[in-house]
């Protein structure tokens, strides 16, 4: 795995994000380490409020106004430090390196402007081309994102197009600046099933063709299985499990990941055969407004020990071949290693 030696494209190290309002102080992201290499798809999975969006958008200065944010740690994009940057420079960096696809394309596009000119004006701004060239680029992008008859669509208003088409326009808009990293914040949640598959295919296609890294924020496990190279499972602002998609989804170790996977309804199980349905995880995520010692998952954890609420579980590497499967649960790691040794012994 020589990938490890290469400097990653996007990296966060010991990232801590505190959000302050007049009422509460929330630790949204708690010492997170992540790396994304060029041409790789990293899926960030977790429940609502687990810090997925804050973790990815926070370092880019894209958190909603009205909350005071305190970010500590490191965040780098192709060697450049993203934190401690003046807002202007950060905005420039964002335009050049990142493309962002939001959940709801209908509200992310200006309803008063035709979609084509919205693209073209960004092309003019980010690539420094003339208006005519901007228009050409816009039409080309519309074509590339699989929009039929792009010349005609160029002059359409957002309300004249379907959700799937608009999401394609959003993707085109995200690609205008020739980004190195595409951040897709639940890109298919607002779309219906058939369109979802098309959009995912398009994203995968773009990632392959242009060697763009994608950070995919989602809570849909099937999307992860289809798309991701790497998976980071976030729980209450901390990484529970992090590794390649095969490792995390087929050999989950952390009790939270296991719970998350068993919460997905299985299409193949017949009614009655699996009467209990998806197992799910009992309880609800902890209140993140006060810091507590120990593991955040302890109240809902089926394998919790007394020491779990005493100190914070470190991220440990599992002795797989890949050497890139990290789990923050000493209890589960120990039993998995025992099991692996047992299997090896039998063989």
């Amino acid at each position: 795995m020589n990938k490890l030696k290469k400097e990653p494209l996007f990296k966060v190290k010991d990232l801590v994000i505190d959000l302050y309002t007049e009422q509460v102080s929330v630790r949204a992201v708690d010492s997170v380490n992540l790396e994304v290499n060029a041409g790789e798809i990293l899926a960030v999975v977790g429940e609502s409020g687990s810090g997925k969006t804050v973790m990815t958008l926070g370092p880019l200065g894209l958190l909603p106004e009205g909350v005071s944010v305190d970010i500590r740690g490191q965040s780098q994009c192709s060697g450049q430090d993203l934190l401690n940057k003046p807002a202007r420079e950060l905005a420039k960096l964002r335009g050049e390196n990142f493309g962002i696809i939001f959940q709801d394309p209908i509200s992310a596009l200006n309803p008063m402007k035709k979609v084509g000119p919205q693209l073209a004006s960004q092309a003019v701004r980010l690539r420094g081309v003339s208006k005519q060239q901007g228009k050409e680029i816009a039409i080309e992008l519309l074509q590339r994102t699989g929009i039929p008859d792009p010349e005609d669509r160029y002059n359409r208003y957002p309300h004249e197009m379907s959700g799937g088409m608009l999401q394609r326009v959003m993707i085109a808009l995200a690609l205008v600046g020739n980004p190195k990293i595409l951040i897709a914040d639940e890109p298919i949640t607002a779309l219906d099933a058939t369109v979802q598959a098309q959009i995912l295919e398009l994203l995968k296609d773009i990632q392959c063709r242009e060697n763009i890294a994608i950070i995919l924020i989602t809570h849909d496990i099937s999307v992860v299985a289809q798309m991701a190279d790497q998976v980071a499972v976030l729980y209450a602002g901390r990484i529970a499990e992090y590794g390649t998609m095969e490792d995390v989804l087929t050999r989950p170790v952390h009790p939270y990941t296991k719970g998350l996977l068993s919460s997905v309804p299985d299409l193949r199980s017949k009614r009655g055969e699996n009467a209990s349905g998806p197992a799910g995880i009992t309880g609800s995520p902890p209140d993140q407004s006060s810091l507590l010692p120990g593991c955040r998952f302890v109240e809902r954890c089926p394998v919790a020990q007394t020491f779990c609420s005493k100190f914070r579980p470190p991220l440990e590497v599992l002795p797989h071949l890949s050497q890139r499967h990290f789990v923050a649960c000493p209890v589960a790691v120990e039993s998995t290693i025992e099991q692996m040794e047992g299997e090896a012994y039998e063989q």
Partner: protein
Amino acid sequence: MLNKHSLSTLATWPWAVLTPVLLFVAIAIFALWISPYDPTTQNYSAVLQGSSWEHWLGTDYLGRDLLSRIITGAQVSLVAMSIVLIAALIIGVTIGSFAGYVGGKTELVLISAIDIILSLPSLVVALAFIGIIGPGYWSMIAALTMAWWANYARMSRAVVTSELHQPYIEAARVMGASHLHIFVRHILPHVLALVVVYASADAGALVLAIATLSFLGLGVEPPTPEWGQMLVDGMNYLEQYPRLVVLPGLALTLVVSSFNLLGEHFALKKVPRGLTQRHLKILKRLRAQEEARISELEASA
């Protein structure tokens, strides 16, 4: 609801904008006790005196204590202003919301009437009204109310029409809520949230309008001390004794600007903004302490 938390945020209250207004209200409420003399008692042996220990701000041409008159003037202004504001709010919100809720022809008629009133300067409307019913304290209040309500009606209508299409109104209707219930429980809070903020900024303008009408001799009648009135009285002595005009004018300016500040503050509050640097610093320090405590706990375990 004065728990520990609200006490800790007391330090972050906008005291800078609250203090002037609270001071004005306190002076108005306790006017009777804090004014050193009776504001209407004339004393011909002490006419047009400068400031002294007996009369801190001196006396006017009838020997009345200026400080007492300014203090009592605050009371007169506050009372008249509150009556007008409350009446205008009630009338405006009722008519405006009704127009917005009912819609159709009724709305068209009402909103046209509101627009007609709004197209005229409010002081002109008030003057015309006083012209019809004659000058006096209560006709001044009635006239100002007539001139002021249209603004609130306009705003209420706008809020009602936009809220009326929200899904939660539909949900309430599906669950069989009556119109009155929907309006009072679901729409009125939105209306008040906007209108009351606007009214707090408007209070200053209203104090000024009361003074203007009294200045023109159409409002508060002479023996009652009123700031606008005091300006007229002082006019004749402007050259020799400018303080007779300057001091009530100053009081007026301070009150108007402090209400404007308050209104501005409320308006800004409606826009979500981060915490003040000071507040953030306090919270960060608390967080750091918490962090240190946790790491100590984890280390000892």
